């Protein structure tokens, strides 16, 4: 299996981080970065990571089932994650979640027909003091109002990139 030169370089760096007889430590970082490029955790990706870390494909597969960010099926181009845990719940997180489901006609862990947007109701993402919080792929959006969220979903559905939607600004650097 071949990867982009960037990912190859990253994998090489990962494998060098751990003691020579402890390459298994690289399995989870390789899975998540590999998934970002491949689009999902495919059987080929599992085989390849097993080969490079010196474990069995079964040992990689048992990990895949455990972690919530690892997905066997491709997600949308924009994976919209909405927190409804306690701090977000108190200030409108659940309403944002319902708004998204209603607007897109999809539910938890589902993808729109055009493959553009997928939704996930997620647990606490560490943005409690800036609730309600939303993550699009790896970007954080804080203190999201229903109006802003409306624009975000409309914009993404119309094929805009998140940075082209003026109403919302990601907070991470």
């Amino acid at each position, binding site marked *: 299996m071949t990867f982009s030169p960037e990912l190859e370089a990253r994998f090489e760096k990962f494998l060098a981080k751990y003691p020579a007889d402890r390459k298994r430590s690289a399995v989870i970082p390789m899975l998540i970065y590999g998934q970002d490029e491949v689009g999902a955790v495919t059987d080929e990706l599992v085989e390849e990571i097993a080969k490079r870390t010196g474990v069995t494909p079964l040992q990689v597969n048992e*990990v895949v089932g455990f972690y919530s960010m690892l997905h066997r099926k491709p997600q949308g181009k924009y994976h919209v994650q909405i927190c409804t845990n306690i701090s977000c719940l108190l200030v409108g997180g659940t309403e944002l979640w319902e708004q998204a489901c209603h607007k897109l006609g999809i539910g938890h862990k589902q993808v729109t027909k055009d493959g553009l947007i997928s939704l996930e109701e997620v647990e606490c993402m*560490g943005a409690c003091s800036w609730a309600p919080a939303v993550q699009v792929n790896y970007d954080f959006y804080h203190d999201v109002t229903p109006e802003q969220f409306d624009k975000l979903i409309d914009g993404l559905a119309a094929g805009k990139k998140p940075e082209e939607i003026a109403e919302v600004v990601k907070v991470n650097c």
Partner: protein
Amino acid sequence: MLYNQPHPLEVRVLSRRFGLPNSQSIETYLANDGYKALEKALDMTQQQIIDEVKVSFLRGRGGAGFPTGIKWGFVPRQSPKPKYIMVNADESEPGTCKDRLLMEYDPHQLIEGILIASLAVGAHQGYIYIRGEYRYLIGVMDRAIDEAYAKGMLGDNIMGRGIKFHLATHSGAGAYECGEESALLESFEGKRGNPRIRPPFPAVAGAYQCPTILNNVETFCAVPPIILNGGAYFAGLGTPKNGGTHLVCISGHVNKPGVYELPLGFNLMRMINEVAGGMRGGKLKAVIPGGSSCPLLKADECDIAMDYDTLAAAKSMLGSGGLVIMNEHTCMVKAALRIMRFYAHESCGWCIPCREGTTWLKKLLTRFHEGMGQRSDIVLIGELSKNMLGRTFCPLGDAAALPTISIVEKFREEFEAHLDGQPCPYEKSSRMVTA
């Protein structure tokens, strides 16, 4: 900007560099006392470093509140095995969002704290386990680590003193359970994040079964100020046996939610009314004092000093500093349900009382909130929770049970108000969407 404008009541020790221009860069750090504590520690013995941390009464900021110096003292320094430093940056406790700021605005403070810990036990390798959702912070920390290598703070010859220490980040992939120390170690080794039976504790058998110092981000960040200004200075900021300041993450129904650095022992009502700008949308009903694992406090219990021992005496916990403030319009049954849904989702399934208990409680609470509960269910919810306590490898079972028990005991009338098919008194229709 994640951090808020400094509040006059704050005591900014760990957060004092937040807001400086280019606060992530090593130049800014060096111009503001950066790596001076490391320089000092290089002239101290291992025992002197550990003793200074003991004097500071720094206690683990990840939630358990165990004295850090004592934890470090458990590491068998004479062991022939390699020793590791492991940083828990898997911040996932609902209500908690402080480690994000510490890494985003002052990554070198964390690196310096890790380096001092490595000197204290003779470790030559460290890892920062960062939750997968914090992808951008992996970039921030990687850049800071590269800078530290370039300046000779990391590598084979730290500050030209012939001492070796290497540091790298490690990405998680989404699992609350991996914030628990032994599950974190399993996950770090490339396995499912199931907890280990203890003893042996990580100090003796941690990463790769080698002696390991494993602490929360904030705990490591407190070490440079302790070494630089002395343990007594840090201890003096807090209350007896509860040293220093901590980052309090305030969320929920207040006017100015945010992360504030306050001394241990700061009064909770003053936090709400003076620091966080007072209640929003109604009177105070309840507070989660330290992340969703902690027993809740009723409004009349909130005139309390926020430190480990005072909260323990009040049968709650300081936890990880995640303060969730709820006003009078909050349905406590719904709050209990949402918290339990979280634990049922995050239970790793290793221990049956937790795996089955959280799932059953989620079902019971869902039924209750939808108005189909029976009077006997109130007792059942309490009893089921109590039967989980102390019967699991890791504290996740307790973390699910404790807030539930407190809500059932302290807000029983709200459960009764949901009986006999009555709709939730706090909302027009029951709208809990279950994943």
